[in-house]
Each structure stands twice: as C-alpha cells, then as structure tokens.
C-alpha cells in the first residue's frame, strides 16, 4: 500500500484500487471506486446498519472501516450473497426468504439486513427469536415493523437446514 494502491478481494474477485484517497471509508471505496452500490450509505455513524459487509469473516459497518487499514482483506458484500446460489434467479436462501415473506418494502435496509441474517445463520442454524432480534439490532428498518423480517429469518433458517440435509 506504499504506492497508494489498495488491494481488496471483493466477493472472490481481486481488485486493485489505484485512485482511493487514504482517508476513504471501505463503504466509499466499494460504492464509488468499485461500483458496488448494493451496500447503502445513510447514517455514516454505525447506527443504521445499511452498509453492513463482511471483512475477513467479521460482520462490520463498512462506513466505519478505513479502507486503507484493511488493505489485503477479503470483503463480502450483498453482491456476493447470491454468487453460489442454486436458484434460477441467482438468489441466496436468505434473499429468497425475504421475498417469500414480503420482508422488503422500500428496500434500503435490505442489503444490510441480508448480510446480518446470512452471518447469523452461518453461526447459529437454529436461532431463537431473542438471538435473531439481537443479531439484527444494528439494522434499522423504518417500513416493515420487523414482523415480516422475523418471519423471513425463520423461513431462511428452515430452508438452509433443509438444504444441508439434502446434499
């Protein structure tokens, strides 16, 4: 990173970012330098969770990560969620569950919620409601009232468990 070039592996693809200013957040680099606009920019203070991404297996707010400090890291964004999906639409189990449950209204919080729920189900395939509520406590949705989001998480958990039972 001595020459100012930033190396990031995003959703399995290696990127060299040559034009980033050293003070930029990871979210800014993803959206403005790499054109990955799925992660949303809103509060810029870690309150809303709409910029949630994974950095080296850690779920974090992209707006609070200094891009230069994670040079060389592996990043997963919402654009990477459906990559290994088997469905025709290229949707992951969590994405499909959100659609089926009607857990999306304006959609702004959805990418962050999907990242948080995907991460949760990797850790805990059978989360109870309290665990789910805590896992999504950093993702604000101002449309749905969360009822359908909780239903979607239940659906996604069930479908992931089914998928693991049938190889």
């Amino acid at each position, binding site marked *: 990173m001595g020459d100012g070039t930033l190396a990031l592996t995003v959703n399995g693809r290696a990127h060299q970012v040559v034009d980033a200013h050293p003070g930029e957040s990871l979210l800014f680099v993803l959206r403005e330098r790499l054109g990955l606009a799925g992660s949303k920019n809103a509060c810029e203070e*870690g309150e809303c969770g709409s910029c949630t991404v994974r950095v080296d297996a850690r*779920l974090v707010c992209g707006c*609070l990560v200094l891009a230069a*400090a994670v040079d060389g890291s592996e990043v997963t964004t919402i654009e990477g969620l459906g990559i290994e999906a088997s469905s025709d639409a290229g949707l992951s189990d969590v994405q499909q569950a959100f659609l089926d449950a009607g857990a999306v209204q304006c959609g702004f919080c959805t990418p962050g919620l999907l990242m948080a729920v995907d991460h949760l189900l990797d850790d805990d395939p059978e989360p109870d409601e309290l665990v789910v509520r805590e*896992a999504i406590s950093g993702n604000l949705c101002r449309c749905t009232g969360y009822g359908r989001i909780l239903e979607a998480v239940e659906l996604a958990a069930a479908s992931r468990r089914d998928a693991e039972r049938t190889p």
Partner: protein
Amino acid sequence: MTVTIARTLDDACAALADRPDAVVLAGGTDLMVEVNRGLRRMDDVVALDRVAELRGWDRDGDELRLGAATTCAELAGDELAPLVPALAQAARTVGSPQIRNAATIGGNLATASPAGDTLPVLAALDAVVEVRSVHGTRDVPIDGFVTGVKSNALAPGELIAAVRVPILDGPQEFLKVGTRNAMVISVASLALVVDRAGRNVRVALGSVAPVPVRAVEAEVLASDRIDWDAGAAPGPVVVDRFAGLVADAARPIDDHRGTAAYRRHAVEVLARRALRRAFTAGSGVAA
C-alpha cells in the same frame, strides 16, 4: 496523509514516535464517525488492527490481561464472560453486533467518553492500563487514566497495549439506562463487583460525571453491613441507605440525553437493583 499499518507493537510505537500527532486507529467505531462527519482531519494514521500482540488475552492466576484490541464481541463471548461478568455485560450493551465486532476495549479507554460503557466496570475492578511507547511500558491505574471528558493520561507517542483486571470470586452486575436495548448511548450506568475474598463491594458509575466515579461511602457501608458468612441480602434499610449514598456520589449534568435529576434518580434505582441481584439467593455469594 499517510496510513501506517503496524504489524508489531514495536512498529506501532516507532511510527507514533516519528509522528506524535498521528491518530491511532483501532476498531474505528468512534474515529470514523468523526471522519465521516468532517470533524476530524487525519494527516497521519497508525492502524493497530494487524498487531497480533494487541489481540487476545492471558490469565495469570487471579489476574486477566486483556490485549487492547480485544473486541467488545470477545469481551461478551463465552470465554471471557465467566471471568469478568460485568465487563461482558457492559460490552454486550455497546452498539450493535457490527459495532461490537470492531470496537475494542483499548478504544473505549482512549476515547474516554463519560458514556464509555466499559469504563465504570474497569473503575470498579481497579483495572490497570498498560501504556507503551518507544521508551518502554508504564502502568497507569484506571482512576488516573481517564482525566476528563474525552481526555486521558496518554502522552504523545504513547498507546494502550493492554488492560489488567482481577478475576474476583463473587457476583458482578452492570446496569445501564438508555432509550432502548440496542444502539444506545448510556444516560446512566452502574457497575457493582463483589470481592468475596476481600469481603468488599465496589461500585462505579458512568455517564453521571466527566469521568467514571467510585461511590466510596456506599462501598464502605455495603462492605460493613453485609453478613459475609451467611451471604444474605442486606435488609431494606441498608439497601436504601446504600442507594442514597450511590446517588450522592454522582455529579451529573443536564444534557440532550437526560437531566441531572433524572440521572441521580436512575443511579439510585440501579444501585438498589444491583445490590439486591448480587445478594439474591442463588447468586452464590455465600462461601
């Protein structure tokens, strides 16, 4: 602007010695908020994320040494929570999972916000902050570390390497008042730890003074009046007197999150609740 990604503690100290005005970046959850708002201009940054020596923790007998980069998620996790339960409870109330995955105990100390949630616990535990620079290591007791609102005892070129806390035999409580259960900055908080071996109770308050405050008179009363052999809950008169003394120790102000009167009332309620919980049958205070 330069960003130095330190790989070792020596690297980090050398970079800071070179550029004493550099900003130290750990989890970024405080610093990047200021950067995003345009409140903080960063010329030089020393990033500590890759310094392995700052990660992890060691237990040496009854002492726990927490690397400065230990995250709130780790503090609240299954390994550390049984050793310092109040610290785990406090860490779990910080922000959201995303924030707790990044935020560090060293960062909470360095930011030194009156609302820093781990600070009252560290105060109640008489934690010691290990400070490091190219000149070596020095220990700073917690009551001398936080010197005012968002100010600390670090000299230019120094960084926090670790925090040492005792592993005590006895129940611990951290209680916090805020507007909801997640993503909330404390309006008032209280940490209570019981040291059964030393037969004392220690109480510290957060968000009710510029720095974490110990409620010393309340501690003396509780430590004197508890029947340590029976491990029984003190009677209601003692609990009320204890809570009153805790409230007297607070030096709150009115601000956008609450009034001084509310905060004083809140810590009185928290004190009563914490003492009762700690000495309720089943909490294992009796030897």
